[in-house]
């Protein structure tokens, strides 16, 4: 199914359901064009494919059967499939979530991307604001964020916070199981036998180096093995 939703800045989000059969695309395109006859021409739209991989042929079909005839302007093509992102970039299409025009100090509230899923190997999220993952980031998955990154589950994949060089960005994770964390232009690396491995930590840049710290303690925490 394809759904259209309003976003900030009068932008529309066109959500192409992950479980929709590829053979239903052309029928669904017709329907969206019909429904959007009045408001789609000239509209700014984010196409959201979830984790669906797109082939070159499908991208072409989407352009010729949906975007061009509907007269819409695509601000971003969103898919978590890393190979598809690379393909889209090679073609020259925008792949990162457009940033809303909010003041910098509101970034966390306005521009955060909240992902209610885990990212599996081969999936990548690129976002100009903060990213919160209510799931795991598995080995082979990637997050590129302009701002902070919070992972409520296990981080085994690659996170790059503040990828535009913002070294005030931080990475907060429930269980750090990644060999590397990137912030701004800095790379922090970690071995499996270090005491931070598997712990709840905050990763930050301090005086040019990557530092790891435990989460703030509360009374009920028992952290005996890691204390010290």
């Amino acid at each position, binding site marked *: 199914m394809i759904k259209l939703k309003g976003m900030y800045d009068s932008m529309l989000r066109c959500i192409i359901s*992950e*479980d929709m*059969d*590829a*053979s239903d695309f052309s029928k669904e395109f017709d329907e969206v064009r019909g429904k959007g006859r009045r408001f789609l021409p000239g509209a700014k739209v984010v196409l959201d494919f*979830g*984790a*669906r*991989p797109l082939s070159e042929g499908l991208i072409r079909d989407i352009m010729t059967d949906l975007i061009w005839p509907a007269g819409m302007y695509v601000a971003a093509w969103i898919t978590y*499939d890393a190979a598809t992102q690379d393909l889209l970039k090679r073609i020259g299409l925008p792949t990162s979530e457009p940033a809303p025009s909010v003041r910098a100090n509101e970034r966390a509230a306005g521009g955060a991307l909240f992902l209610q899923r*885990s990212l*599996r*190997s*081969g*999936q990548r999220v690129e976002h100009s604001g903060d990213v919160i993952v209510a799931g*795991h980031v*598995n*080995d*082979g998955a990637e997050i590129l964020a302009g701002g902070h990154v919070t992972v409520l589950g296990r981080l*085994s994949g690659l996170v790059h916070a503040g990828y535009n060089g913002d070294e005030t960005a931080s990475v907060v994770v429930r269980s750090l199981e990644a060999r590397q964390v990137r912030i701004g232009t800095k790379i922090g690396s970690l071995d499996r036998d270090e005491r931070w491995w598997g712990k709840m930590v905050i990763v930050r840049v301090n005086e040019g180096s990557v530092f790891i710290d435990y989460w703030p303690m509360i009374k009920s925490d028992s952290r005996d093995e890691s204390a010290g």
Partner: protein
Amino acid sequence: MTARVIVVTSGKGGVGKTTATANLAAALANMGKRVVAVDGDVGLRNLDVIMGLENRIVYTLIDALEGTCRLNQTFIRDKRIENLFMIPTAQSRTKDAVTAEQMIEVCGELRKEFDYVLIDSPAGIEAGFRNSAAGADEALVVTTPEVSAVRDADRIIGLLESMDKSPIRLIVNRIRPHMVKKGDMLGVSDVLDILAIDLIGMVPDDEAVVTSSNKGEPLVLSQSTPAGIAFRNIASRIEGKDVPFMNLDATDSGGLFGIIRRAILGH
């Protein structure tokens, strides 16, 4: 009849897809089901060899798709097990010889004649995986307990999820009981923790697998080999029976059984 169409797949190659397809097909047929195993690994075919049917190939799936023969002329009936059939593929063609639409059509036809259609697919990161999986409802993902195989399995599970296959269930193959847990080897509970899908079976590393595939004899017919028992149990679970898991993961100190119960029962 309306068959369940199940694709047997993996991220990494050589982890036991073909072995699993052949043995599960034989076990399900042995339970009285009408089963066809389809070789979906064009160009790297070996399901026929493992099932011991290679000398009886006349037509392949590709011949049927090209209109050289009818689909049912490609069926090879297994003489040892009633109700077991296989459809071979061509060795001399590339993965793009079969399109997704063709696979969907073939599966649609097979659905009418069988209880189970099992598709042996190429490894997931190879071309052709999507096509061979296109006609399936369900998926079995095979992995070994190695870090690299698990990471590739994770990737394929992501793809299968986006193709709306359900259920997607896991077979952990080539487990060595009492294996030294070090470096690149993971325990089954670690594998489950990472992949977060339901486990349908654990298969031990077993010499008998190699000897039986060399002889082209399904392992599940012999009563006592550990891998044969494991594959029979998986077939029963596919049939919806509640078969307890063997404890192969002696290195897991936390008690594997509890963890696996949680994975299956969801608590």
